[in-house]
């Protein structure tokens, strides 16, 4: 792989991490990270939609008139989200129930439309796919880490494996804990990113 293609893929991890740097897709980040596995699943679901819609939009962008490009991109993204919805309903019903409303809300995840607009519509198919993969993995990584932190502090477990008996600091699996944990993680991330 050429250096440029590698760059496109890896920038989603640190330099342009959607959660900690670009501050996009905050709603699912805060809502679905009550545990590590939930965060991981949400990240992967978003990755699926992101990569596929990037590919399709990159392919059709040359023939889409400028004035209607937003509704067209939205329809494409919504199609993939609905496909994902049906697949999850049929084959992963537990996670479907846990993630609930946030699966269809991937449509309005600023990351997906944002990347379509900023990158996929202006670049080739392979590059767009790589961009989707990179940003998607960066997002998944952020969500999983936040989910892990909230799960460890709030339930005393990691990926369902409990290491204390009873409950942890429950506030972390509730609403305020999400904001606070993310705030501190952001500071940590910036510290690490600055060192690189």
């Amino acid at each position, binding site marked *: 792989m050429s250096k440029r293609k590698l760059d496109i893929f890896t920038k989603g991890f640190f330099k342009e991490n959607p959660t900690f740097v670009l501050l996009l897709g905050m709603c699912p980040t805060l809502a679905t990270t009550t545990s590590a596995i939930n965060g991981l699943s949400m990240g992967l679901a978003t990755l699926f939609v992101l990569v596929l819609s990037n590919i399709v939009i990159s392919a*059709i*962008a040359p023939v*889409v008139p400028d*004035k*209607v490009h937003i509704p067209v991109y939205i*329809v494409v993204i919504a*199609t993939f989200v*609905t496909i994902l919805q049906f*697949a999850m309903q049929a084959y992963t019903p537990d996670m479907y129930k846990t993630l609930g409303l946030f699966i269809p809300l991937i449509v309005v995840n600023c990351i997906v439309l944002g990347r379509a607009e900023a990158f996929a519509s202006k670049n080739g198919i392979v590059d767009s796919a790589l961009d989707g993969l990179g940003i998607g993995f960066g997002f998944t990584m952020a969500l999983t880490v936040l989910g892990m932190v909230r799960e460890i502090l709030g339930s005393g477990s990691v990926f369902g494996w409990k290491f204390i008996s009873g409950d942890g600091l*429950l506030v972390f699996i509730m609403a305020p804990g999400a904001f606070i944990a993310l705030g501190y993680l952001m500071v940590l991330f910036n510290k690490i990113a600055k060192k690189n």
Partner: protein
Amino acid sequence: MAAKSNLLNMALCLTSVCLVCSALLGGMYALTAEPIAKTNADILRASVNAVLPEGGELSEAVPVEVGGQASEYYISKSADGTPAAYAIKSTTAGFGGPLTVMVGITPDGKVYNTSVLSHAETPGLGAKCTEDEHFMTQFKGFDPSQKILTVKKDGGDVDAITASTITSRAYSLAVKNAVDAFKTIKGE
């Protein structure tokens, strides 16, 4: 690099994209309709079986009114066709939203077991209704003719979850409504 934005192009583009996507979704919907129905049936079956004694053939859902709301129940029939137990779905208002409980009742009117289908209770407090062993097992074999289905605070015989009186009240009410519905079913 995009095509020209005249009315014909825009209309054509939007319409064709919508048509293609709708067709794709229609296809996907048809493809997954059966697996989804099967998965839902499996989940329901599991939740009903959790509250009924082993064995027995499950009937289809039968509509019934529980606690003033439309709901349904299932009959588990033994080999000779006589009803061995009833599983009644009961929904009440919990602390954070609707609380739905599946209540298994044997023909003698005693509660065999209960299981939560869905809830919106606070983690660590009301959500314990699905984890607290002591709370859940007290409903096993509960005889409504001998004991009262309300929390001890309200003069009944149900031990509430610590600091979750409202959830416990809702749960007890759900079971009580199911028992009342059972009486109506039996009475028919």
